Every structure is written in structure tokens, then in C-alpha cells.
């Protein structure tokens, strides 16, 4: 059951900004087990999306390694990479800009199969396209429609069908529901969970919405300024957050329940620091209510209890 499908080792991605380096992803170690979902949470600018892209090598990593089924993704040749992309796919955040406006729905879904030569004949491809549309719940009459004719929820379903067209094992879902209304969001989440069950998929689910991540993930990694500050099974993380940032993040979610009205919200002051050439030491230190001198030393992710990792010198 707990066979590791994907693992990152000290993964780094720096972007050059003039002469300085923007540390988008800095030394991230995660593991995703076969058939499970790892949720990646964090606020905008913390490097969630970059992490997802580096894992699929849509960005070249600056350092570290990604191991997928025992094979190093960073060392793959172009040919191997193409093959890797048939088993690892991505669903993009914005269904409005990630579909080609000049292609019809069936063309969009069929394209990966044509590019990767998955099926031999056109007939097979069209048959599979129709199947995929049925799986994600787009009615057949929309096959020749163009993206602008469809609403956000349906467009996101096309994005899902396109990712599924190459029969992947692993899908990076980059905020797939954040552009959608709540009732549509729930429909898409249910679809993603059904697909996981039926097709044995493994997800890396990137989001800033903590209630969504709790609903869908087995394990959660919390990111702050390019680093993973806490990683734990999802129930454990919500019940027992150990990093001050995680605790503040959880307390900041408005809960639709009146009994929570009087609850004291722990408001963290200040805002995200600049990720350009950050100082050594804990990156949350400037906003942390429990900050001490030792916090300016570099922090390592350490295992406090089984499977619960925290990068904090004095965890809560």
C-alpha cells in the first residue's frame, strides 16, 4: 500500500532576478505514496505552483532531484521525458487561459493522444475522446464546441479529460477549483475523487484553500516562502499543528458555523517577506509570535512523531 511513487530530494528552483536569486522552491523534500493524495498548501507566492512544475520538469530545477518510480526525472533524456509525461500530467489553475481558444473540445482532448501516438487510428482516438468526455461528464453535443462557449466548470472538466487522455498514474492538480463557484467547485472535487478511486490515480493537490485540501488529501505539506515547514497526515495536521505558521493559517480560515464566532483568531502580523535572496534561518521568524534568537539558525525538517515533520526549533 505505502509504495512510494514520487519523491523529491533537496529540490531547488531559483529564478534569476537581475543579479539576485529568487528562491521559489528551496530544498523541498516530499514523498507521495501510490494511490494517495498529497496536498500542498500555502499563500500566494510561496512556491506551490513552481514546485508542481519543477516536479514535472516543466521548469528545469536548480538543484536536487525528483525520483519517479525509481527513476531520476532530472536526468531523463528528451525521449524519456516525453514518456514520463504520459504517466505524469498536470491540471492547470485557470480554465480560462489553459485551453486553446481555436481548438474545439474534442480536438483539445485528442491532442495529447495524437502527439504521444497512443492510439494508431483516428477512429480509436475519437472513440477514446468520446469515452473521456463521458467520464468527466461533458455531454456529447459539446464535442465541437469551443472553449469560449463553455462555463468555468465545464472548461475545467475538459482540462481534466485532457490530462487523463494519456492514462497517467500521477496528476499534479494546480488549484483546479479555485476559479470556480462553490457549487461547481464541489462537483469538480467529487469528480476528481471518483476518478482517483476508479483509475487508481495519485494526486499532488496544490491549493490555498485549507478546507478543500483537508477534504481531498491523505497527507498535507505546508509551504512558506519556498520551503516546506510542516508535513503530516491530514487529520493529524488539523488536529495538532506544530509549526506556528500552520497554526496561524488554520486559525485564519473563516468557518461557516456560529459557534466559531467568538473563537479567538490568532492574527499574524505583517506580510510575506521577499523571496529574493532571503536571510538564512527560519523564514517565518519575522512574523512569528514565538520568535527567539535561535530562529536565525537554519531550520531542518525533523520528524517529531511518526510521519509528522516540522521545521521549527521549538515546535508548539
Amino acid at each position, binding site marked *: 500500500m505505502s509504495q512510494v511513487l514520487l519523491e523529491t530530494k533537496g529540490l531547488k528552483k531559483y529564478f534569476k532576478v537581475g543579479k539576485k536569486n529568487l528562491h521559489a522552491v528551496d530544498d523541498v523534500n516530499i514523498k507521495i505514496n501510490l494511490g494517495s493524495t498529497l496536498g500542498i498548501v500555502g499563500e500566494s507566492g510561496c512556491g506551490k505552483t513552481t514546485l508542481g512544475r519543477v516536479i514535472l520538469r516543466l521548469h528545469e530545477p536548480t538543484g536536487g532531484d525528483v525520483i519517479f518510480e525509481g527513476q531520476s526525472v532530472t536526468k531523463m533524456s528528451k525521449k524519456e521525458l516525453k514518456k514520463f509525461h504520459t504517466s505524469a500530467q498536470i491540471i492547470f489553475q485557470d480554465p480560462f487561459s489553459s485551453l486553446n481558444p481555436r481548438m474545439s473540445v474534442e480536438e483539445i482532448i485528442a491532442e495529447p493522444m495524437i502527439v504521444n501516438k497512443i492510439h494508431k487510428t483516428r477512429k480509436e482516438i475519437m472513440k477514446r475522446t468520446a469515452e473521456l468526455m463521458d467520464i468527466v461528464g461533458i455531454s456529447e453535443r459539446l464535442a465541437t464546441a469551443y472553449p469560449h462557449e463553455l462555463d468555468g466548470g465545464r472548461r475545467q472538466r475538459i482540462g481534466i479529460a485532457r490530462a487523463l487522455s494519456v492514462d497517467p498514474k500521477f496528476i499534479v492538480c494546480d488549484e483546479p477549483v479555485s476559479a470556480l463557484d462553490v457549487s461547481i467547485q464541489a462537483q469538480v472535487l467529487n469528480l476528481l475523487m471518483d476518478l482517483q478511486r476508479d483509475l487508481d490515480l495519485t494526486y499532488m493537490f496544490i491549493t490555498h484553500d485549507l*478546507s478543500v485540501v483537508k477534504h481531498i488529501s491523505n497527507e498535507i505539506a505546508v509551504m512558506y516562502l519556498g520551503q516546506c515547514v510542516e508535513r503530516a497526515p491530514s487529520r493529524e495536521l488539523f488536529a495538532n499543528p506544530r509549526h506556528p505558521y500552520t497554526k496561524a493559517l488554520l486559525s485564519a480560515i*473563516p468557518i461557516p458555523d456560529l459557534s*466559531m464566532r467568538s473563537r479567538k483568531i490568532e492574527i499574524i502580523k505583517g506580510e510575506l517577506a521577499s523571496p529574493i535572496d532571503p536571510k538564512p534561518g527560519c523564514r517565518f521568524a519575522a512574523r512569528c509570535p514565538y520568535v527567539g534568537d535561535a530562529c536565525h539558525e537554519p531550520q531542518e525538517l525533523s520528524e517529531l512523531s511518526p510521519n509528522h515533520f516540522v521545521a521549527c526549533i521549538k515546535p508548539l
Partner: protein
Amino acid sequence: MSEKLLEIKDLEVIYKTDLETVYAVNGINLSLNRGETVGIVGETGAGKTTTALSIMRLLPSNTGVIPNGSITFDGQNILTLKEGDMRAIRGERISMIFQDPMTSLNPVLSVGDQIEEALILHNHEKRTKEQIKMRVEETLELVGIPSFRKNEYPHQFSGGMKQRVVIAIALACEPELLIADEPTTALDVTIQAQVLAMMKELKDKMQTSMIMITHDLGIVALTCDKVAVMYAGEIVEFGTVEDIFRSEKHHPYTIGLFGSIPNLEQESERLDPIDGLMPDPTDLPAGCKFSPRCPSCMEICKTSPPNDYYDGEHRIKCHLFNIED
């Protein structure tokens, strides 16, 4: 304390173009007492922002038409006011916080100038230049921005800080009614918590009434006294927060909305979303607007629009409750 500040009666708003007519708001009734916060919840296209713009009289003049209804603010029907008289209310007695702080500020004016603008245009107290400068600094400090930043431009501020500037502009003239249109949607959760806490504090301090437009039921639970749930241009359910969050009786849409949010407290395997999509506002269904998506739709729902069912102040627009009685 329970003096009525704003009353909306049978308000209808349409957007009319040569090609089609969009029925954005279809006969809503809403009232707001002084010092109260009313939340308007609903999904994209429910008519929340259109309602707010009608109160501000900021509907696009070439297409937006109000065929019916009245909006009474402090005893005056503002829909019949002359534009000049409206200008004395807009920005001064009623002001609005817009959704997107990134686009609602002028990029070529410093934030101090933008706050000052509101004060100069509504200068009834005959403040001198010096006094206005003082007031600008006061307002900035009020929303938690150090006053020495008043000469900076919007691009030098982060999203949360920009939203504070927008709030400062809205509050500069100490309005009686503040309309907040999704004030925190564009912000991260920790910043959202900061901004919401600040708004609540300022509201209590200045005794402002507020209309909070949002799609997040969590924000409603946190900030509002009364809630209106909107769907396809109608208020399908209205009541106090207790009515909406605690009562047994609900409009099927409200139930669907709650079923769509993953619950943090309980473990649930699947969500119970509402099937289907929002109806096309140019071609609304006859009868109940929610009937095509409603799990408890009856024959009568398809043909005749439901009336409000009252239970004290709690009102629900649904046939389910009218038939029982």
C-alpha cells in the same frame, strides 16, 4: 438603535442591449437598520454586485435600467434624486469598497492624494488644507498604514495593504453605510483575517452600517447580523445569522450551498453539490428560478413563482413551506 437606514422595495434591474435583455435583479426586498451588518451571499451572477451598484446609483447608464422598485436611504428615495443631490450622498454617506484592490486604485496618484480627493470633494466642514492633510494621515493610521507612506504609489503596496488603502478611502468621510463588495476575495487567508478583524473593529468604532457581499459563508458567520441568500436575482432566503445557520427550515439552494463546502470539523466522504448550472439571466425559467436544479422540485414550481414564507423575520421563497401550511 433599530432605526431603519436603508430599505429596498421590489427592486428590479435589467441590462438592456440591442441583442438581449439580462434580468439581473428580479424584485428584491431588503432593509437595514443603523449599526447592522447584512450579508449578501450567492454565486457569480446572482445579482449581488448589481444590487450594490444600484444603491450607489452606479449602474452603467447606457444599459442598466431600473424598471421597478425603490431604494429608500434615510427617508429619501435615492432612485429619483437628481445626479447632483446623489453626488452629495455617494462617497460621503454611502461608500463602497470594491472587490479588486489591484484595479480599483489609480496607479498614477499617490495613495495620500486618493484619500484626499474624497475629502476635498465632500468638504462640508470647511476644513482647511492643513486639516485635510491631518485627516488623511489619521485615516491611514486608522487602517493600520503608517502615515509616512502617504506619498507612495499603489504599486509600492502589497495586495492586503492596497485593500487597506481602498478601505481608508471609503471611510475617510465617515459614511453611514458601507458597502463591501467581496473585500477579501483577492487576499490570502492570513491577510484576509487581518483585514476582516480591522473592518469589524472600525465598524464598531464608527457605528457604520454595512452590507457585506461575499460568496464565503465563513465570512458571513464571522461578520454579519443578518443574511440574504441570493440566487438568479432573487433573495431566496433572508434571516438573522441564527436563522440561516441554526434553523431547521431552509431554501433548497441554501442547503445546497452549505453541502458544497468541505466541512473542517467533520469527516465526510463526498460533498453534496447542487447539480447543474445557474440559469441564463437572459432566459430565466418560469416559476421558481431554482426549479431546474432543485432536488425537491414539484409540479407547481415549474409554473408559478413561489411567494415568501414567513417565520418571524426569517423568510424563504419556496413552495415547500407554503404548501405545508
